[in-house]
């Protein structure tokens, strides 16, 4: 079940980024956190979903575009290790989606407790 939620979130993150913009990622993370507040580790799953969404998108487009080679060039151009741009690209959505999900899950849980 967690894996399914992870995949659904990753697809939503990828589609949201392509159709809207990068800042949709924390919104999706927050929604996920709210909806999955009763599940285990919603923040961690959301962080993974964010990274998987962007990483998966790049993996798909790499079939028709030199993503890996360009990443190496980009790293060198920025005087960073060749893996750094890709690592940053996975880390950034994780840091957007993860805390957003964790926060909304906490707030949602607290509200649930109060209602009870």
């Amino acid at each position, binding site marked *: 079940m967690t894996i399914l939620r992870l995949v659904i979130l990753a697809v939503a993150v990828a589609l949201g980024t392509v159709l809207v913009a990068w800042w949709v990622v924390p919104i999706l993370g927050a929604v996920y956190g709210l909806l999955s507040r009763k599940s285990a580790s919603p923040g961690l799953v959301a962080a993974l979903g964010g990274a998987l969404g962007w990483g998966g998108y790049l993996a798909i487009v790499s079939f028709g575009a030199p993503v890996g080679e360009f990443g190496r060039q980009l790293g060198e151009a920025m005087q960073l290790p060749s893996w750094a*741009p890709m690592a940053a690209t996975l880390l950034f959505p994780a840091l*957007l989606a993860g805390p957003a999900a964790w926060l909304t899950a906490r707030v949602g849980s607290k509200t649930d407790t109060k209602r009870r």
Partner: protein
Amino acid sequence: MRPLGILGALALLGATLFAGFRGAGPLPPLGGLLDPARGAWSAATTGEHPREATATIAGLRGPVEIRYDLRGVPHIFAQSEDDLFRGLGYAVARDRLFQLEIQARAGAGTLTELVGAIAAPADSEPRHLGLPRAAERIWASWPDTGVSRRFAVAYADGVNAWITGLRDEDLPVEYKLLGKRPARWEPINALHLAGRMSWTLSYFHDEQQRLAAEGLVGRVAAHALFPTASPLQEPIQPNGQLAARIDTSALPAPGTPDSAILALLPWLPRDTAPDADAAMARIFASNNWAVAPARAAKGKALLAGDPHLELTLPSVWFEVHLVIPGKTDIYGVTIVGTPGVQIGFSRNVAWSMTNTGADVVDFYRETVDDHQRPTRYLLDEVWKDIEMREEVYRDKAGRTIRTDTVRYTHRGPMRRMGSDWMSMRWTALEPSNLVEAIWSAEHQTTAPAFLDALATGFFVPAQNAIVADRSGNIGIRSTGHYPIRPDNGDGQVIRDGSVSSNDWQGFWPVSDYPQAMNPAQGYVASANQQPIDPAVQPRYLGYDRAYDPWRAAQINRLLRADSSVTADEMRAFQTDPGSVRADLFAGAFQRASRHVLASGQAPKSLRAADSVLAGWDRRYTRDNTGSALFERAMRELVRRTWDEFVPAKEKDRVATPSSAVLLRLLGDSASAWWDDRGTRDRVEQRDDILAASLAAGFDSLVARAGPPSATTWAWSSQGAAAAAHLLRMGGFSRRGIAIQGGPGTLNPSSGGQFGSSWRMVVELGDEVSASGTYPGGQSGNPASKRYDDRLKYWQSGELETLYAPPSLESVAPSQVRAAVTLRPGGAQ
């Protein structure tokens, strides 16, 4: 714990969002940069143009069709001139948008607005040279309906149409890394680019070097060692010789130092290049030549163009084909940002350029009212107001970060040197009309008409324009504005600015320009050598150190020896590894080393060095093991011979005579110049210095590369060409490009970032056939296959066949990679 956890998560999310929207430290906003669909990664997905596209351009009078061929060259078909240049601007922007902006800003002195305060020193130079002010004045001098202004405006329309319709994913990666969007393209940018090019190609002034030399060795010696006439004459305008003429007469000995000039030395520049030619050869090594039908294997005129410039990625050039049915059919290369094709061919003529190296910069010592903050200068006993121009530097956000005041006399910008104020006159700061002149020339049908049309408005940077036509005419003319100085004097002195009689008296008439049309020798050639033999025309045009005689000697040698030239030989000549310089100096080294070896007082390594040099074929092929030794020996020779130009208690020379002057010195075995000032107990002669230089060159090479070997001594391992990205970003640059050629050869691009920037061979007849390539590729996108796909051809000296369909209807579908249709519409 729980409130702390919430605070921590909020802080983490807030910080990430802040970095995403605003960036952090030197980093641009990370959201836009890392977004996999629209950020930097999109460079990888937009490397190829879509098969078909349409766009609108306001003001377009009819449709413009662009077909990209298999090499990525846009063939632009329009119905009018203005529409053609709208199409050109659009096509250039589509492939080279970031290059457009950064190069124009480099000329305008506004790089800080794109890359930040770090560029302030680079921006300061063009502003203090007066280039942005000159661009504004030249722009104002162009009539609204004139060709130059119309084309610049149309070109800007095209560029701005691309910018307006730009999707985030198409934004060049450099903008994303800088966190910037492209600025609107202004028509005047064409003039900023022209100014930048003039700065590279015509801002030579030897006054300060010769002055420094005068301080150290006296006026007579300085004038002999820094002459206006090159001691090696192989001029552009044929002088009837059957070989290069070498002056081997004795040079005057070093004279008494001039203490007044020595006091100025702290303000004069140091000459840190290993030899005077080294710096020039890296930068100015353009070649062109044309062969008459009588000397061509197929009986048709042949032309080779090979301009050398800084090697950058993307390249300075962009290859295009411009067609207006029944009027225009021009194929060639355009300097990115300029409305026109500078080198190329039509169905009737082919042309290319090399730099003339004329002295078109003069300095005047001004008398001012206040040495700290002058406001007036004296001219013919009348105080004149100094024009003050405030130069404002802004950062990426538009905030003012610095202001300068640049002062101007009627001659040009002023600079302070020591306690003096100098003003400068330079042809690059004066009106010209090169866009119109080139456009007009390209539409001529004969070689003489081409050269005459060019001379009407092409004033700076002076170029040796070579042309061939389908009727078999070949011609060359050093075209540009050449000042007439008072008393026909030379330009290597700093004149008194307080009298107007020291001003330029006008410019040379075109009839006096160095030139030749269908000379008896059956070919014409230029390679940045002295254009006209001073024995034929003694009027001052420039000075020896601004010229390079060696490539001219080599191409003339090759062409004289070949009376049945083919297009493929023309191609091979462009990377020919032979060198007249090596032939002459290697012979001298060998004679000297044998003489010293016979004396029994030879340095330890001289025998080994002599053995290597004896086996050297004097060619700069990539696997050659003799070239590296020879070049090290040459550096040692220059260092040991010209030690008189190192001021006391310093390490660097203030000036270095050219290698042609060194060649002249070889004729005098006992000249005082050979004496090594470091050895007080003996007086060295020529052979002592030559042998010691050869031995020292050998020792230094062994220290660096070990004993002689086929790998570590290979020429390719001693130096390679490099093409740096415009922002000098390592990952987007290409380094270690081992090539054939070295100093004095026709392809002296090894070991530096200057080199052949476009190679072209054209055969003219009933049909025109052409081949060419340049170091780089058509795309400015580092992730595109077309970013550097031509480097392999350039490196190996190969050329690609150029496809030039005369009409839209004749474009073969199999040759089309992508198509664009531009239609009228949209907002301006």
